[in-house]
């Protein structure tokens, strides 16, 4: 089960690979010095305090009357949300997760209902001591393992790379929006 997840990750697995990613962005990105991205100040505040106890500087002072910086930072997210690249990432995520989640929930509820409402069917012997209920129970374990593996593989191959590119672009846009407003 785990073998596929033990691989050293490509882009996006940790701070080191993100630092590598930063260089891929070439000249325009170089004048912006990102420190460690995970500890960097937020592109726009997430309603949180910073270490000094004051609201983080990038947080709009009041949400009802956003300043120009906040307004532009908000536009950045709307702009990214409407972009083709983001729609594609979201579509890939939803096209996998919605049918997947529906399938395993129906399969699980069906199993529980069958076990409680149709014990006769579940007790039907298959081979030796093994009956339908045993097979269904072990089947639940098996489908859980397989779906977890399939999800991880789908996300790694189809979603991680474009999502990381989007992350970087979004953060850059948000930074640009803020600098422009100051």
């Amino acid at each position, binding site marked *: *089960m785990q073998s596929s997840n033990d691989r050293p990750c490509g882009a996006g697995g*940790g*701070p080191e690979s993100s630092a590598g990613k930063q260089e891929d962005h070439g000249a325009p990105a170089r004048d912006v010095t990102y420190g460690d991205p995970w500890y960097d100040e937020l*592109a726009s505040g997430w309603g949180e305090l*910073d270490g000094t106890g004051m609201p983080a500087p990038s947080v709009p002072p009041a949400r009802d009357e956003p300043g120009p910086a906040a307004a532009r930072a908000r536009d950045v997210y709307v702009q990214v949300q409407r972009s083709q690249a983001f729609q594609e990432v979201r579509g890939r995520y939803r096209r996998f*997760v919605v049918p997947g989640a529906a399938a395993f929930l129906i399969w699980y509820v069906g199993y529980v209902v069958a076990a409680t409402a149709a014990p006769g069917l579940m007790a039907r012997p298959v081979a030796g001591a093994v009956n339908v*209920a045993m097979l269904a129970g072990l089947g639940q374990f098996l489908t859980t*393992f397989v779906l*977890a593996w399939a999800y991880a593989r789908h996300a790694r191959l189809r979603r991680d790379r474009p999502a990381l590119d989007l992350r970087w672009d979004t*953060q850059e846009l948000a930074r640009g929006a803020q600098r422009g407003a100051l």
Partner: protein
Amino acid sequence: MTADHQVLALLLFSGFVAVTLGITTWVSRRRHGSAEEFYAGGRLFSPMENGFAIAGDYMSAASFLGIAGLIALYGYDGLLYSVGFLVAWLVVLFLVAELVRNCGRFTLADVVAARMRERPVRIAAGTSSVMVSVLYLVAQMVGAGSLVALLLGRTSGAARVWAVIGVGALMVIYVSLGGMRATTWIQIVKAVLLLTGTVVLTVLVLVRFHGDVDRLLLTAAERSGHGKAFLAPGLKYGGDWTARFDFISLGLALVLGTAGLPHILSRFYTVPTARAARRSVVWSIGLIGSFYLMTIVLGFGAAAVVGPRVVSASNAAGNTAVPLLALDLGGGAGSTGGTVLFAVVAAVAFATILAVVAGITLASSASVAHDLYASLRRSRGSARSEVAVARWAAVGIGLVAIALGLLARDLNVAFLVGLAFAVAASANLPVLLYSLFWRGFTTRGAVWAVYGGLFPAIGLVLLSPVVSGSPDSLFPGVDFQYFPLENPGIVSIPLGFLAGWLGTVTSDEVADEAKYAETEVRSLTGAGAV
């Protein structure tokens, strides 16, 4: 049990306590007191470490001793439980883990409050998180008391009281001094111990039957006295339709509740990225799945080797099935092997309880300090003082849990774990899913979703047979039972979702498109994540 068992079990357990206290001291050596460090362990754990810690957080003594015991007594019906506990992780993996890691900081309320008016939402989500944690914690504390009585053969009240106080004191020390870093390492150590113990016992059971699982099952069925019915569902939950609906209700709560458990959600913040959160969930699915597969072997093994009659004579709920099995596999009572294995199982069970309560205490102290205190205080304190509040909150929650654990120590509180899952599924999951996926969700919807799941879940339990109106209830003398099921999930989970929808469509507030765009972009890309 003989004195040898007790001495050896106590020695092993003291060893575990010494190691964990050592870990706590070691990680608090270079303490900065930042919130990042206290709540999230600096976010620098690897996916494998976090996967083990999640498994250590999730596999409680109830599943180690309880599920194997249920299988030993009722056969297949015990297995139904473990399936629910495992499949729940797919909900976590598909819908929650990565998105929550990307757009929250420390707690569930962070994710919801980012889109909404912060104060009411934080108070609602913080309240329900603390509620879930306290229910779960009391169940574990009472379990610790009974476990001591069972495993050390001391049924005196004093032993139980000291077990509850001891567990409470240790968890407060781990959490308030070591924060998330100490808690995580304790959970990792515990997960390794528990899995090693389970693997050893499983191998011994399989060796006993020469690797023939078919014969193991047939022997179990034969010794149970139920024949083939032992291998099919129906012995425990197959009674009248109330019992059947009760099990369906529990099944729903188990599968949907895990994704709303605060101590599970807070584990995703201990890794650097959403990708690492996903990989840690895949690790934990592998570990938890193998663990439950092995408990099935242990349960049927206990039925085949020890026999359900001996198990239920020792403890009516079957909790001693695995220790008795260990005694037999090691060579029987009085033999060295039996003594050692029994003591190891007892020590692992203690370690399990300690690691689980530490995780829950930490998560609830985060909810108290980061959500409730931060929203209710008038003046804005510093982040440093928030961590101090969290440390004291851990002490306070420890005291509350000890007090409730002592009050409830003679009551049958097995339903509390199911109830904690039901509250998590009814109050926390709807608000979380709506805020991540519903464009039009509003502040009122969020507040209603939380309270609309929380109050029905608690209220229905108060009106259910577990509290009054039946010989096994908490107050058998009175009868205000109006709801027939022991687990409220089948009613309260839909109510939570319904309340969230109702609150949203009836509010005048128009959902902020830009805020939703921000949540969606952040959750799927990780932009701006900490």
